[in-house]
């Protein structure tokens, strides 16, 4: 399978690592060889029809910061869209940064790849949260696969899990913790009794929160995932503006303390049901499935046959997210054999 990897940040590098680690295994067990024919970042691209070496890509990126420095195959300042025209490929893996304003460049790249009849795998949330229906319909019209397991919950299996492991079940609602950064902050505040500001700083120093933490702490990231779950699992036609969002920046250590005394924790919960699309801080029982700590994500799916099923997993991380991307690539490969 020839892959164009659009974006070479944490997740993109995770994908390269996973290809390097797993190529022999995939060949042996699935007859699948993943070949990177193009990789892009903000500096430009590296393109080779014969395949790029994932280890060399990682080395060059860490040493020089630019994939365009790849020997012979490197091209400076080339636009992602143009890269897709320069090389023969089967699947685009799109892992550019999430943009919740207009979904770009993910949206344009995805539309182009789908119209060129290529399969697409993404970890991006922005274009899905803003244009879900449009993109899915386009992929159906063009008869290509469009998969996005990595966009919700990182390594926590949820989309493919609901569709392939619980088929025949009607999923009534989903209640979950869909953002690792806020879960880390709230968990630390609960254990340490520290203030919100202090804990946010700690999370930033550890690289768990970004320098501008707005998307995480104001619940926007969780709201994007809420939209994706609502559309893909519950069939609710919605976009980001339909979600009620309240973040955690007003949470105080005093409030956490009051909750604790009655056996509760405060968690940023996402609720996905036909009656409610909501992201807000909620009280959960200390011994409930919602009481997961640190950067973990979780989701409880309420179903008609299997009753409640809960999944837990790491919500972020480079190789962890790449594992979700690999599961999509394998599913595409298996469906085409």
């Amino acid at each position, binding site marked *: 399978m020839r892959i164009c990897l659009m974006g070479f940040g944490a997740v993109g590098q995770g994908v390269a690592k996973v290809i390097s680690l797993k190529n022999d295994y995939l060949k042996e067990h699935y007859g699948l060889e993943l070949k990177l024919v193009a990789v892009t970042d903000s500096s430009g691209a590296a393109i080779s029809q014969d395949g790029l070496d994932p280890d060399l890509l990682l080395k060059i990126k860490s040493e020089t910061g630019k994939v365009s420095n790849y020997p012979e195959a490197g091209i400076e300042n080339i636009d992602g869209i143009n890269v897709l025209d320069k090389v023969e490929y089967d699947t685009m893996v799109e892992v550019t940064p999430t943009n919740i304003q207009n979904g770009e460049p993910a949206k344009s790249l995805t539309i182009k790849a789908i119209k060129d009849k290529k399969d697409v795998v993404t970890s991006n949330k922005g274009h899905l949260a803003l244009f879900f229906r449009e993109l899915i319909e386009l992929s159906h019209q063009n008869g290509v696969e469009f998969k996005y397991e990595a966009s919700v919950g990182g390594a926590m299996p949820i989309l493919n899990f609901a569709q392939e492991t619980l088929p025949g079940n009607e999923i009534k609602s989903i209640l979950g913790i869909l953002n690792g950064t806020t879960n880390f902050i709230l968990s630390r505040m609960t254990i340490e009794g520290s203030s919100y500001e202090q804990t946010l700083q700690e999370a930033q120093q550890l690289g768990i929160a970004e320098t501008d933490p707005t998307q995480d702490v104001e619940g926007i990231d969780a709201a994007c995932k809420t939209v994706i779950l609502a559309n893909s699992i519950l069939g609710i036609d919605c976009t980001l503006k339909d979600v009620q969002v309240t973040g955690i920046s*007003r*949470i105080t250590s005093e409030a956490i303390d009051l*909750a604790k*005394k009655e056996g509760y924790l405060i968690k940023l919960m996402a*609720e996905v049901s036909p009656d409610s699309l909501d992201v807000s*801080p*909620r*009280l*959960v029982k200390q011994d409930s499935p919602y009481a997961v700590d640190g950067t973990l994500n979780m989701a409880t799916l309420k179903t008609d046959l299997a009753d409640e099923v809960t999944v837990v997993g790491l919500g972020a991380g480079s190789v962890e997210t790449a594992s979700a991307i690999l599961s999509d690539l394998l599913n595409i490969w298996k469906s085409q054999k």
Partner: protein
Amino acid sequence: MRLNMVIELLDVPGQLLAALEPIGTLGANLVTVIHQREIKTERGLIPVQITIEGDTETLDLVMNKLNELGFRVIEVDGNILKETINTILIGNIVDRDVKDTMDQINQLKGVRVADLSLKMSEEPLHSSARITVEADFGKKKDVLEKIQNIGKSKDFLVISEV
């Protein structure tokens, strides 16, 4: 001794039978069953009045079994059973008239503020309060809606149970 209760049932075939079954099995006598499908409780379920007879121990077993089977008993001998609802508010709780906040909740029928814990922060705009409300079964939605509305008008962050 004799016990009157009201339980809530879903309007689907077999529910009444399933609720009555443990009564006989556990050795209590069924005295009356009043089942009017056209009346609905606030949660959209059908209230069924059941009178049973037996010794205290047997009646306890029946009540436990009904609970275990997921049937909700909402009234026993004329007393409406209560549920507890916890919420936490963050904001300028004291200055935004804490008495008025409680009064507004207490005004709801069958609802009472049972406990209020206040924790002041160094910054009075971010004080926290935990409000514990006791409400008749079926009132939870009204209570949460009321508290959300108070939160909106007084700029409190409302944290309710999942």
